[in-house]
């Protein structure tokens, strides 16, 4: 095992680095910098969300009450599980347990697809209810006793909902692609306890995308249960 590990590392070593240690530190550092970029990327949307939620609170409350909290909560749980399997997969890569790592990555992907499937169901419901911004947008509260007070601005809520969850879903799809890549490479024996930074970096990315959802869920689904907000 030891000699093959070294061969794997030699194969992966890029010659502009002084040694494997420098290569590993460099790639992890680069990944963290990239995640900083990602934070700022989502940050623009969060900023828009905060501004409009402050201005049109009522409209946001009514919009959020149309969210399916159970599906959202399930998805939150699914993602947390996926982060667990991802973290365990990284640990397995570190320990050289190739087979177990493969299974854990497969579970991670299953959780990822489950998330996207549930999300797609929610999207379909919103689409059928005309809760998609644009010319066909039409908003009614679920309760005929309380007609929508501010449908014009609820459209902004839905615009941000679609933009934020859409961008997040796009990141999930990219994440599943990356997991597929390290799964295939891992099965082909590209990683070893000396060289596993791609697994580690994909893990970081996966946790980041997961974390974004942890913020999106309360902000979009759980604004207020009461009619009239407050």
């Amino acid at each position, binding site marked *: 095992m030891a000699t093959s590990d070294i061969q794997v590392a030699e194969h992966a070593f*890029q*010659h*502009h*680095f*002084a040694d494997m240690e*420098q290569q590993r*530190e*460099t*790639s992890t*550092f*680069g990944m963290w*910098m*990239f995640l*900083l*970029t*990602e934070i*700022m*990327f*989502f*940050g*623009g*949307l969060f*900023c*828009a969300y905060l*501004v*409009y939620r402050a*201005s*049109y609170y009522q409209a946001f409350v009514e919009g959020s009450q149309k969210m399916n909290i159970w599906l959202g909560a399930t998805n939150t749980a699914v993602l947390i599980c996926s982060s667990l399997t991802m973290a365990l997969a990284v640990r397995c890569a570190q320990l050289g347990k190739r087979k177990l790592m493969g299974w854990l990555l497969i579970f991670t992907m299953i959780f990822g697809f489950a998330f996207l499937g549930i999300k797609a169901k929610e999207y379909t419901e919103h689409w059928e209810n005309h809760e998609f*911004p*644009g*010319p066909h947008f039409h908003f009614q509260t679920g309760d005929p006793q309380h007609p929508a007070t501010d449908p*014009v*601005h609820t*459209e*902004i809520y839905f*615009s*941000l909902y*679609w*933009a934020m969850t859409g*961008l997040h879903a796009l990141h999930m799809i990219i994440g599943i692609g990356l997991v597929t890549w390290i799964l295939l490479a891992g099965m082909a024996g590209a990683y070893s306890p000396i060289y596993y930074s791609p697994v580690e970096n994909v893990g970081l990315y996966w946790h980041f995308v997961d974390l974004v959802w942890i913020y999106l869920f309360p902000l979009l689904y759980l604004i207020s249960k009461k009619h009239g907000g407050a």
Partner: protein
Amino acid sequence: MATAVQPVERENYLNSNYGIKSWLLTTDHKRIALLYLISITAMFWIGGFFAMMIRLELLTPAGDLVSSDTYNKLFTMHGIIMVFFFLIPSVPAVIGNFVIPLMVGAKDLAFPRINLLSWYIYMAGAITALTAMITGGVDTGWTFYTPFSTTYSNTHVIGAAIGVFIAGFSSIFTGLNFIVTIHRMRAPGLTWSRLPLFCWSNYAAALIMVLGTPVIAITLLLVALERAFNIGVFNPQLGGDPLLFQHLFWFYSHPAVYIMILPGMGVISEIVTCFSRKRAFGYEFVALASIAIAVLGFLVWAHHMFVAGISVYAALVFSLLSYLVAIPSAVKVFNWTATMYKGSIRYETPMLYAFGFIGLFTIGGLTGVFLASLGLDVHVHDTYFVIAHFHYVMVGGMVMAYMAGLHFWWPKITGRMYPEAFAKLSALLVFVGFNTTFFPQFILGYMGMPRRYHAYPPEFQVLNVLSTAGASILAVGYVLPMIYFLWSLRYGELAPPNPWNAVGLEWMTASPPPTHNFDETPIVTWEAYDYEHQPQEEVTVGH
């Protein structure tokens, strides 16, 4: 230290292999720098052509050369191309890409493949933006202000916005590569306090690229979505806030001006020390000033919005912070000047450009102080005063520094010397042409001539004619280097490894450098700009 001229056929990054594939699939930072050089030079000429059309239109008060719609597209495309496709990548992606790994004694940037990817992304963005321009153009101004860009303009806004969006990722990847390289790839002994100031300033610029660019990316994405689906986020008729766009836009686009100027400042630090043969005066202060500019630069965006309808108290805070960001710039100017004191000064072309930079940047910076002043900004905002101010910083500062850097490192990049006499002439033409073009615009601006005017009242004509005349001199000043640089590739004298007798690791390897930069990883035992211990010898080449 090798001082003898290397034999011609020594293997280097240019002759190690040939063929189009060896260039398009290269991961060598030096070759990628050249790919960038060719691309941004093309963009510079396209943007410059639009600038000449603008100046020709403004020769007469009436809008007679082109229609108003065409004029609006001209200045929009001039702005988009020059800002996003020339100024932002210029010094970092060309000179920085080439020189930073050499300066830190590394074989390459940390992520060579991402570096190549960034060039492809840049090209994809450039082609998208150019396609939008060729198929009909954009007329929103490079600022894409809503709701004009989202609802009222009927030009190819989405295409241009997506082009800029894509190009943003190239900038992010370049910045990411620089930060990681400077952190992790320095040669043994090269501590932070020994790092060349060019690395410091590019590091500061890279921080802005990584933290600021994603915000403009998401903002332009929202503009495209707003146009495509009418989502209402920036549309006041649907309750959206048009000022939110301006906040998000300037949150990136103000720091972006520091992406443009900081690397230029780094070039000047290298050149002033080299041609004065002295350590940088107040090295730590110049280095920290770069970081201070990058940090403070993120806190001043709303000074573009003093008359846009923000609260007076917000304006007060942003005005104060804008003054603060002027201080590190002033510190730099004073330190460059002091570096020359009791030096041993040579007037080679890079130094002439550096003189020009310091002078013009001083004017550009001081007029920035006018704009930070609330009461005065109300009058000059959105007039030609602003145009003159930022061209003094961007063209008088940044492009001067870029030209200075190109001349300075040209022997290292190509292994050939450029013709010194022509180069001096072009430096002079650029200086004279530039001032003739843009100084009159300060006066025009204070008189009240608004920017982006296709036609203007006749009393503004004399100064506009002067400005257009200057622009033609400026154009000659830029065409000349284009010709002699190309000429030098074949006929220029062979460059020794260190034609300027400069210190710095990039001068310790051959010109042009071998593919892996250094035959052995250098070990640094001296401080930055250690000219005192550099043997004093006159290597006269290219006179």
